[in-house]
């Protein structure tokens, strides 16, 4: 096999707002052979997307390729004129973005957009391009391949749109396809379908690919070779099997280790549920959006008759994919969205449906931590103000007393005290999430609602946050209602897990069942869809979404 891509000592420079030059890619070299899929893996900011974009001779606004060469199909893309680059883009190298929804123009039909590249490069007649598009739709296992192209982007699902973006990239018979985290935004059950379609098409046509991802298990399924990146430099490179089983570099090992979080070492607390009042008791909760219908039910019901019990000092996980109603449930418990019917009681006392009517004690006892630390921390405040406010509000702490407590809180979440005077924009994602947690702890709550708290974080950082949550629980006797779409996270921290599907709780799993996979077909699909580090997993995966729809 010959080398299709050869990157030599690539350097990319970024100019900051203040005019400082920062090298973000520090001399990266690697090759991609024809028909080979190479994966770039690393956390956010490691430069993996920047390298992938340089294969098209493109650098994001404010960045430029400052050194090295990018040989693609015998030509140096880094030194090429813009017109020559435009001639290669789409024809020789094509790109599949993370968010297909943002890549499609909502005002045009899908087919028109899919065949557009072929027409721009004048590679085939319009009729031929359309015929090829339909053939690709079929190869990518899209439903109704003949007519799906006549729909608009909003009329297909996220997973389908991602595959349609792949069809758009493949229509010109490119030699190289760049996948930029194409399944990261998808639910696990959808991810499996998309990955399968990608893999089948790439293998069948012998197209080379560069697959950018932060998820080792996903990469294990599609890549022939893995390149591990950190801080703009290659840490380790090797065949997929070698990286997975014989990783040498400490950072790679850390990535692998984050994949097997230690299960909750919680000694099973012996409680008699009938005798003791549970900490949180949710019964027959119905929550929805929109106006009320004639029968007093909301227009759109997001949570249907859900009942939950959470004992003190224990953790309950809520698992489900997007749209399953798990976040809505948390919002109803917090009092952000008053339920249409049903009851929420806390330590035996009934909670008012909306937060505005709850007592200060109730508000203090239940704290919520959101997924995106970026929007959860006021960018105009410094950290000590963010933490100081709940201290003053709930406990009346001021001045030096407040200072001492802020330092304690920062210690608790393992942040250096020097961060007190910084603003959120000056912290990393993981640090922000810790501040977010510290603010919840400042109230001295009994229950923390964690809404996808680790989903926006890198694997290694997320694992550290989970460890922190466990440690805080041991020290402070907290309980968590832990909402996540990620099974391994839930398994790592929860005693029990409720599985939500289409607004209903389909099953409640005990720890023993969490490993074996549960009874309900949806639970089984959800569990089996989580990619495993084994490269053979995808090929042996058995698809049974039909069984779920039937149930």
């Amino acid at each position: 096999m010959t080398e299709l891509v050869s990157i030599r000592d690539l350097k990319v420079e970024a100019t900051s707002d203040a005019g400082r030059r920062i090298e973000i890619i520090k001399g990266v070299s690697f090759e991609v052979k024809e028909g080979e899929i190479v994966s770039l893996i690393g956390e956010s900011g490691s430069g993996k997307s920047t390298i992938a974009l340089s294969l098209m001779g493109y650098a994001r606004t404010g960045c430029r390729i400052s050194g090295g060469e990018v040989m693609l199909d015998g030509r140096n893309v880094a030194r090429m004129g813009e017109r020559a680059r435009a001639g290669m883009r789409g024809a020789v190298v094509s790109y599949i973005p993370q968010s297909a929804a943002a890549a499609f123009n909502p005002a045009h039909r899908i087919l028109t957009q899919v065949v557009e590249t072929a027409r721009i490069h004048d590679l085939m007649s319009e009729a031929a391009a359309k015929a090829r598009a339909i053939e690709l739709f079929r190869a990518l296992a899209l439903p109704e391949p003949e007519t799906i192209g006549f729909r608009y982007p909003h009329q297909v699902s996220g997973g389908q749109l991602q595959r349609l973006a792949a069809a758009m990239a493949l229509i010109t018979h490119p030699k190289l396809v760049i996948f930029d985290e194409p399944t990261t935004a998808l639910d696990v059950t959808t991810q499996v379908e998309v990955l399968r379609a990608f893999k089948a098409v790439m293998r069948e046509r012998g197209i080379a690919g560069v697959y950018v991802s932060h998820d080792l298990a996903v990469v294990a399924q599609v890549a022939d070779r893995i390149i591990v990146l950190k801080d703009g430099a290659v840490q380790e490179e090797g065949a997929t099997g070698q990286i997975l089983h014989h990783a040498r570099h400490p950072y790679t090992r850390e990535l692998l280790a984050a994949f097997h979080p230690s299960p909750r070492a919680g000694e099973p607390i012996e409680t008699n549920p009938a005798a003791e009042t549970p900490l949180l008791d949710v019964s027959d909760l119905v929550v929805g959006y929109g106006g009320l219908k004639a029968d007093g039910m909301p227009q759109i019901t997001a949570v249907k008759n859900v009942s939950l019990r959470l004992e003190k000092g224990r953790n309950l996980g809520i698992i489900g994919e997007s749209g399953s109603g798990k976040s809505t449930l948390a919002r109803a418990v917090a009092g952000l969205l008053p339920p249409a019917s049903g009851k929420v009681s806390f330590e035996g006392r009934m909670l008012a449906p909306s937060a505005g009517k709850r007592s200060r004690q109730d508000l203090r006892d239940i704290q919520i931590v959101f997924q995106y630390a970026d929007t959860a921390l006021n960018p105009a405040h410094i950290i000590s103000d963010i933490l100081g406010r709940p201290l003053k509000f709930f406990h009346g702490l001021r001045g030096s007393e407040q200072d001492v407590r802020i330092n304690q809180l920062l210690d608790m979440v393992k942040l250096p005290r020097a961060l007190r005077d910084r603003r959120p924009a000056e912290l990393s994602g993981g640090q922000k999430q810790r501040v977010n947690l510290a603010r919840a702890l400042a109230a001295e709550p009994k229950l923390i609602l964690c809404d996808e708290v680790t989903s926006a974080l890198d694997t290694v950082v997320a694992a550290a946050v989970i460890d922190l949550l466990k440690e805080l629980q041991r020290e402070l006797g907290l309980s968590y209602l832990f909402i996540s779409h990620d099974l391994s996270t839930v398994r790592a921290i929860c005693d029990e897990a409720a599985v939500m599907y289409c607004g209903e709780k389909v099953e409640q799993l005990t720890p023993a069942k969490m490993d074996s996979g549960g009874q309900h077909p949806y639970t089984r699909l959800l569990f089996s869809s989580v990619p495993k580090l084994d490269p053979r997993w995808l090929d042996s995966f058995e698809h049974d979404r039909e069984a779920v729809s039937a149930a």
Partner: protein
Amino acid sequence: MFGFRVPLPSLIGLVVLLAWAVVAIAAPLLVPYSVGEIVDFDIFGPATDQFWFGTDYLGRDVFSRILMGARVTIGISLAAVTLAVVAGVGLGMLAALLGGKFDSLLSRFFDALSSIPNKLFALVAVAGGGSSIPMLIAILALIYTPGSYRFARSLAVNINAMDYVIVARLRGESFFYLARAEILPNILGPVLTDFGLRFVFIVLLLSSLSFLGLGVQPPLADWGALVRENIGGLPFGAPAVILPSLAIASLTIAVNITIDNLPRKIRDRSA
């Protein structure tokens, strides 16, 4: 590392603005002649060593009258814009935080107000209420409150949807705290820009009112009134009519270019 970079046009604008501010404050100390005094037999006289900007239709010193006019124009406009923006931003944040019926009612009310043409509204209001200075300030403020309200409300609605505001609400914080600590700091930049632009609109509206004879009344004279009283000098190309117009133009353009090139506080986040 902190870095400031002030572009040249912004610097020019800023210098002109500061100069007018100094003039407005220190006018009585700067004027060579008393504003009401007839100092020359020649009317619509040209610029001379003695009368830098010439003389007006009664033979008064135009330079002194423009300096004193700056006080009136800038003072009334500043008072009106402050009232309009404080009312608009306050109500805008209130509407965003309370939402529901209150928001709808207030928004429709202001929509109705802003559907009346500015100048027509001002003319009718002056005809009804007279043109004393407090009345002028109140009318100008009322005319420009709906725009400020719309602007502030749309910014505040976006901030209100942020998780940090939700967290503060869940804590049970008061409206006043939410508005002051959570929302205001995050909309302040655009609000200040809007303040500047609105100031320009008010200067122009006040000048046109005075030009029509319905604004500032003699013996006081703002720049619009100076243009009006000397309009007879236009066929002679008298500085008495041209220079007050230039004063209006220089102030409004200076505010505009200063805002367009506001020095952005730049912070190097990688350092």
